[in-house]
C-alpha cells in the first residue's frame, strides 16, 4: 500500500513537474529557501527568520532607480516604519561584479543598517525571478510570499499620490489582513546577472 501510494505521489510530481518545477517565488506559495552571506561574511537563511515578516529587496547600488530611492530615503524610511522585532529587511545584490567590499562601502556611504546579501552567482535571484532593481518581496511568518513587485507606484519619481506597496503589504500582514495589492509590475534596471 505504502509503495503504491509513494509511486502515485511521485508520478503525480513528475506529471505536474512542468508546472511546479518553476522554482520561483510566486505570491501565495512558499518562498524559495536560501542561505547567503552578507557583506560582513555572516550567513543568513530564510528559515532562521521564520515567524517574522521578511522583506527582500533586490538591489544594485549603481542602478539609477536604486540611487533615486536611497537618495529619497524611500528604503530607509520604509524600513524604519516597521517594528524590528517583527520585520526583517534583507537587501540582496545579485550583480555578478559586486563583492563584500563594494557592498560594505555602499552600506557605509548610505548609512543603513540592514545586511546586504551577496548572490554573485545569481542562483537565489533567479529562484525568486528577481528581474529588476529594485524588486521587492514580502514573505510572511509562515514563509509564504505575500507580495512581489515594485516598492511603490512611482516608476518615474513624479507621482504625487504615492502608494508604498511594501509598507502596505507588511502592515496588512502584521494586522492579520489580506494584502490588498499582492503583486505589481516591478520597474527599474535589469538585475545584472552573471552571463
Amino acid at each position, binding site marked *: 500500500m505504502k509503495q503504491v501510494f509513494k509511486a502515485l505521489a511521485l508520478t503525480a510530481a513528475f506529471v505536474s513537474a512542468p508546472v511546479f518545477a518553476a522554482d520561483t517565488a510566486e505570491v501565495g506559495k512558499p518562498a524559495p*529557501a536560501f*542561505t547567503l552571506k552578507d557583506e560582513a561574511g555572516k*550567513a543568513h537563511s530564510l528559515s532562521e527568520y521564520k515567524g517574522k515578516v521578511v522583506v527582500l529587496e533586490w538591489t544594485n547600488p549603481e542602478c539609477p532607480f536604486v540611487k533615486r530611492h536611497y537618495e529619497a530615503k524611500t528604503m530607509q524610511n520604509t524600513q524604519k516604519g516597521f517594528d524590528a522585532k517583527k520585520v526583517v529587511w534583507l537587501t540582496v545584490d545579485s550583480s555578478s561584479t559586486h563583492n563584500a567590499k563594494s557592498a560594505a562601502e555602499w552600506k557605509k556611504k548610505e548609512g543603513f543598517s540592514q545586511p546586504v546579501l551577496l548572490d554573485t552567482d545569481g542562483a537565489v535571484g533567479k529562484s525568486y525571478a528577481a528581474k529588476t532593481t529594485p524588486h521587492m518581496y514580502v514573505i510572511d511568518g509562515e514563509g509564504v510570499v505575500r507580495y512581489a513587485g515594485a516598492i511603490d507606484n512611482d516608476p518615474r519619481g513624479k507621482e504625487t499620490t504615492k502608494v508604498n506597496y511594501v509598507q502596505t503589504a507588511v502592515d496588512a500582514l502584521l494586522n492579520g489582513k489580506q494584502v490588498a495589492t499582492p503583486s505589481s509590475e516591478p520597474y527599474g534596471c535589469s538585475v545584472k546577472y552573471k552571463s
Partner: protein
Amino acid sequence: MTHPWSKRSGSRLGGLGVVGALLLATWAQAALPPTAVGSTAPDEGDPRLEGALLLDATQVKAGGDFRVGVRLKLDPEWHVYWKNPGDSGLATDVSWDVPGVTVGDLRWPFPSTFRTPDGFITTHGYHDEVLLFAPAHVAENASGTLNVSAAVDALACKVHCIPAQLVLTRTVPVGPETVLDPEFAPRFDAAQAQVPAPVGAEGAPRVALALDGATLTAGQPFTGKLTVTGADGKPFAGDVEGDFFVPGRIPGVDSVALTRTAPGTFALKGQASSVVPKGEPRLTGALRLGTKATGFTAVDVDTALAPVVAVAGAPAGPSPLKVPSVKDAVGKVQPVVAAVPVAAESSLGLGVALLFAFLGGALLNLMPCVFPVLALKAYGFTRMVQEEKGRVAPHAAAYAGGILATMLLLAGAVLAVRAGGASVGWGFQFQEPLFVAGVSAVLVAFALNLFGVYTLGADGTALAGKVDQSHGLMRSAGEGVLAVVLATPCSAPLLGTAVGFAFAAGPATVVAVFVALGLGLALPFCLLVLVPGLAKRLPKPGMWMERGKQFLGFALLGTTVWLVWVMGGLAGVDGMARLLAFLIAVGLVTWLYGQSQGLEGGRRGVTVALAALVLVGAGAVALRFEEAQASVETRGAAVASHGGAQAWDEAAVTAALAAGQPVFVDFTADWCLTCKFNERTVLSRDDVRQAFLKHNVAFFVADWTRRDARITTKLAEHGRAGVPMYLVLSPGAPGKPEVLNELLTADSVIQAVQRAAECGSPLKGGSVVCARP
C-alpha cells in the same frame, strides 16, 4: 549608417568622413532649431542618447492635421524601451505641450526584443534609432506661430542603465495650407509603416484566438490557437521571422508566446500569474507578419482571453513552509519541490487530487464510522428493488444528492472559516461540542426510528408498511447527509492527501475536491443503479429485514458511544453527563412524536408541541458545554496509552533532538478513529515499544481533539489538513522529519525510528548519511 547625430561616425569614417559628417551636421543644424535637439543619458560625461523634435510639416493650416515626433538616436548597443518594457526597464514616455493643437496617442513602431545572454530577462525596445510620433490636429481658430514642446522621459540601457530626460521645443507657423517637409515627412511615413495596424483597421489582417479551455487557472500554463486572416478572408500565407510577437502588459498573465504551426496559424502558450487579477485578462501585444525579404506588416493584437480562476498552490490562507535543510551549502538554493513523496504530496495535480478524493470517498463506505449508514441504506435498497424498479433511481439520486449537498455545505463552511482567517483542518467540526451533541442526537433519533418507536417518512397509511415516495426520497437524502457527517473524521489514507490539497487550494478546487469526495461516497449506490443485475442479487425481503433494521439501531447507538467519548475529551465528565441527559430527552421527544402519530387532530398537535417543548427545554438546560481544562487527564487517552509520552511542544522537541534523542510525534485526536486504531494496534505493541526504548526515542503526543492553532500550523507545514500525522525526527537531521503513512504498520514505525537513531548517532563521526526511504 551615416547620420548627422551619429557622434561616433567621424572616428569610423576616417578623414574624409569627418569632413562629410561635419558638413552634414552643419546642414542638419540648419534644418532644426537648436532647441529641438538635445542629448542626455550622460555616461561619465558621454551622452548615450540624442533626441530631436521633428515635425512632418514646415507650415500647418488651421483645422489641418500634421504629425509631431521625437527621434531618439542611441549609441551602439544602447536601447530605450517600448510601451511594455518587459521584465525590466521603463517605458519611454513622451508628453506633449502644444497649445492650439490636439495631440493624439503616441505611435510605437514594432519593437525589437532583447534578452540577457542567459535568457533570464527579456525586454522590448529600440536600438540605433526610433521615431516615436503622434498625430496632431490644429484648432480651427489657430493663427500665427504654434509652440511645440515635447518632454521625453526614458531609460537608456546597455548593461547598466541611465535615466534620459529631455525637453525639446520648436515652433511651426500657421498658414493657408499645410506644407509637408520634404526631408522629414518621408521619415514619418517610414515610421508609420512600422507601426502595427490597430485592431479592425481597414485592409489590416484579422487576428482571432481560440483558447483551449473556458478559463485560465492561476499559476498554471494555458494554450490556444491564434489564427490570422488577411483582408481577403483567407489565412495569412506568409512566413514570420525573429521575435515576431511582442506581448503587452497583461495583468494576470506572466508570459505568453506564439509559435507558427501552419500558414496563418500560431500556437499560443502562456502562463497565468499565481495571483488572480481583477477582471478578465486580454491578450494584447503586437504581431509582425512577413519577413525581411517579403516586407513586414504589423498588427495590434487585443482579444479576450478568459477569466482566471484560482487553483491549488494559490492558497488564500497560510501555506506550508519548506524548511531548508541545515546542510544547505551557503549560497545554494534548495529546490522547493524536493523529490520526496512528502513534498510531492502537497504538489499533487488537480486531477490526481480529484481522483484521490473520489477513491477516498469510496473507501469511506467501509469505515466503521460510516458503515452503519451504508448497511442501513443497503437494507432500504433491498426493500425498494422488490417494490418497484423505477423507484431505485430516484432514491439513489436523492441519496447522492444528500451527500453532494452536504459536501458543498462543508466546502462552503471551510471556505467561510478559512476566509475568516482561521486555518481549519479535516474533522474540525468535531472540535465543536454543539456539533458533537447534534450528531449524537440525530443518531439516537435514527436508532429509535429503527426500533420502531416512531416512523419517519410515512403518513398514516405508512404504518401499514407502504412508503410514501416523496417522504421516502427525503429520507434517502437525509441518509446521504448523515453519511457525510459521519464520514468526515474517518480520514482514510488517500483522503488525507486530497483534503490536504483542498485546504491549500483556491475556492474552486476546494469545491471540486469535496464534490469528488461526495461522488466517491455515493459510488456503491450509483453502481447498484447502473448495474441492474447487481440490484437483483440483493436478497429478498422478509422478517429478517425488520430484525436487521432493529439490529442496525444498535449499531447506530454504538456510534453514539464513540461520540459521547469524544465529548468527554472536549468537555470532560460533566460534558458527557450533559450530553447523555440531552440524548435521553431526545429519546423522550421521539417517543412522544411516535405516540402522536397514532392520534388525531388537536391531541396530536398538543403532543407534538409537548415534544418540541421537551426538546427545547432539555437543549437549553443540557447543552452548555465548558471546554475542559487542558489537564493531563483530558489530554486524550493517547498520552496514557503510551507510557512516558509527553504533550507535544516545539521547544521540548528541539531540546530532545539537541540531547541526541530521536523524536516521534503522534498527531492525534480523540474523535479520530484512524488515530485510535493506530495507537491501539501499532503504537502500543510490545515490539514497537521495545524499539522506542532501545533507541531512547522521545515520544510526543500532539492532541488535536480541541482546536489548537500550533498543531493546525504544524499539520499544514506538512501539507496535511487533519490527523493522524506521524513525524519521526532525527537528531542528525532535525530539519528533515520523516512523515509516516497514515495507516501505521509496526514494521514501518520500527524502521523509521531505527533510521532516525542511526542517522543521529555520534559514533558514525562526521560522515553521517541520513538517507530517506
